[in-house]
């Protein structure tokens, strides 16, 4: 599939800026992808192409890395990524009911993004806050001791951010 030149051009400047911050050495690829993704929580095809060019790495390799790690996404995601832990400690303290409450409140299923591109629901592996399980991480913030009742409160906290 051909990609529009405008898309490539608009990605170029930002990617070059980010790459020059760390250097084009391959060891910085993960950090560079984190930064490139920071604007809209996803990596577009144009962005990946520009990263590959700027760092002189085959596109296949950049794509391989972008799809290997769970924090990157090559599909569009919402402004707020709600990462819900479904590891065993959260599982046995009620994560399932919290997941259902999020799905109901947002009208989407796990793995989906709301139509207004505001929220994405994802599973995550253990967040390391099992002492306050069940827990979710929304962008950089972690919320613990969740119950279905608290879900709306957490969502409004995001809206007001």
């Amino acid at each position: 599939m051909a990609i529009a030149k405008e898309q490539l051009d608009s990605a170029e400047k930002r990617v070059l800026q980010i790459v020059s911050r760390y250097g084009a050495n391959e060891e910085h690829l993960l950090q560079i992808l984190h930064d490139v993704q920071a604007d809209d929580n996803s990596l577009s095809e144009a962005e990946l192409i520009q990263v590959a060019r700027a760092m002189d790495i085959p596109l296949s390799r950049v794509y391989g890395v972008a799809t290997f790690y769970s924090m990157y996404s090559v599909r569009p995601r919402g402004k707020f990524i709600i990462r819900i832990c479904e590891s065993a400690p959260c599982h046995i303290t009620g994560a399932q009911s919290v997941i259902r409450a999020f799905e109901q409140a947002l009208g989407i299923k796990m793995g989906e993004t709301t139509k207004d591109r505001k929220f994405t629901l994802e599973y995550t592996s253990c967040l390391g806050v099992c002492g306050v399980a069940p827990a979710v991480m929304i962008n950089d913030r972690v919320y613990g001791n969740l119950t279905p009742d608290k879900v709306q409160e957490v969502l409004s906290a995001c809206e007001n951010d």
Partner: protein
Amino acid sequence: MEFFRSHVLVCSGVNCSFRGSRSVRAALVEEIRAQGLDKEVRVIETGCFGLCEAGPVMVIYPEAVHYCRVVPDDVKEIVEEHLRKGRIVDRLLYKGEAQVKGVQTWRQIDFYSRQKRVVLRNCGLIDPDSIDEYIAREGYEALGRALRMQPMEVIQAVKDSGLRGRGGAGFPTGLKWDFTARAAGDQKYLICNADEGEPGTFKDRLILEGDPHSVIEGMAIAAYAIGASKGFIYFRGEYKLSIDRLTHALEQARAYGLLGKNIFDSGFSFDIEIKVGAGAYVCGEETALINSMEGKRGEPRFKPPYPASVGLWGKPTCVNNVETLANIPSIIRQGADWFRSIGTAKCPGTKVFTLTGNINNAGLIEVPMGITLREVVYDIGGGIPHGRAFKMAQTGGTSGGCLPEALLDVPMDIDSLATAGSALGSGALMIMDDSHCIIDVVKCFLQFFRHESCGQCTPCREGTQRLYELVDKISRMEATEKDVELIRRLARTMEDASLCALGQTAPFPVLTTMRFFPEEYEAHIVHGMCPAGVCAAASQIA
């Protein structure tokens, strides 16, 4: 409207009345009038404050000062000192003694009294953003002393201490350092593995957040011992707060010259760089971690060669866990003999565990190696909440084993747990009560592996998927005895043929639960029922 600058609320509740609040109030009104303050101060009768055992009680606003056990003779002083001069009458203040006396002290709480804090000695006590508070508690003393020793002497001290890696494998730390130190090459690297992804484990994160300098100091000592001038800390991408704290701590250490060129004028130079992952459990495996640091997919490498000879960018590299490194300063400062006096002969020292699941005191604990599981669950953990019964403990995280009540007296150390059919692993300890179904929770573990398998080798990529499907079949009451046999064969293949520990240990939870909870499998397979009622309910919804 009249304006009063002060209001005195006198309790007229039953108990205070009984103790004489009525006469106190009368004396108060009289004294205020006598001192000519009746236009400024108003006395109000109120209901019970709930401090009945300390009555009669009065509260003076706007300061909201509580006086207790007031008798008519105290009134003159209160009016004179407090209402006239604005000085609080200390001797009558409510100190809350009665309530606090009833509260346990830290030493009385089993949660703390049974612990032995070496790694966590500063956690929860010092401000992690202040290097001075760390230094005030003997911080960086060990680094200074180590730099006066020969590198081989430092390695010998760690070997003598018997310290074994705290990341899961339990390999002797001194030996690992020795291999790296002896490897050929000018450039060597030290990596601190903070890619803590084992479900139910969060010790490394809390150590780094609570006492970052203990890890930095441990790293500097390790680097000196193995001859590395450059160190890295590889974090999970999800650990934002830890990354910020550590970045700050590194800057402070550099400002004091504890990192950088020519540390303590010894000629030894060392600095640390932070590397951030992007969400992949398998990167906790040291060769996968190295690949990830090089900017690649975090897929494990074949071993040998081990990182000690061919590691990061092909150079000799030593990878140590956060908790392992946090032990180093205490070992150097207090000596190998002191360290060996804690724990067991084969596993000296302490272990940090993370208590999760159905347990009253969920959290972070540090205990001598060899303490029994029962002590941890009931004394430190405070037992099972809501009056339910203990069903199983999973030690070592998702790749560890599940122990039944009959094994509660197993000592918690690397070898004893392995003998019992489980693992100490990273120190995750998840407790489950009898409301849960073994099959359901095993399915949850396998869901995790199927998601986290990196896909590089077939036994793990296919095995984790098929294993999940087979256990799912059991939970849907559709499995037969044949499927159990299939699980056993598949597990053997994965254990033998997987490239790294992920695939090798993924069948662990299935195998240990089949061994310790056969009746639960039988109920699902033969009788088509879930004793805990979990699987049945789930299948009804679905």
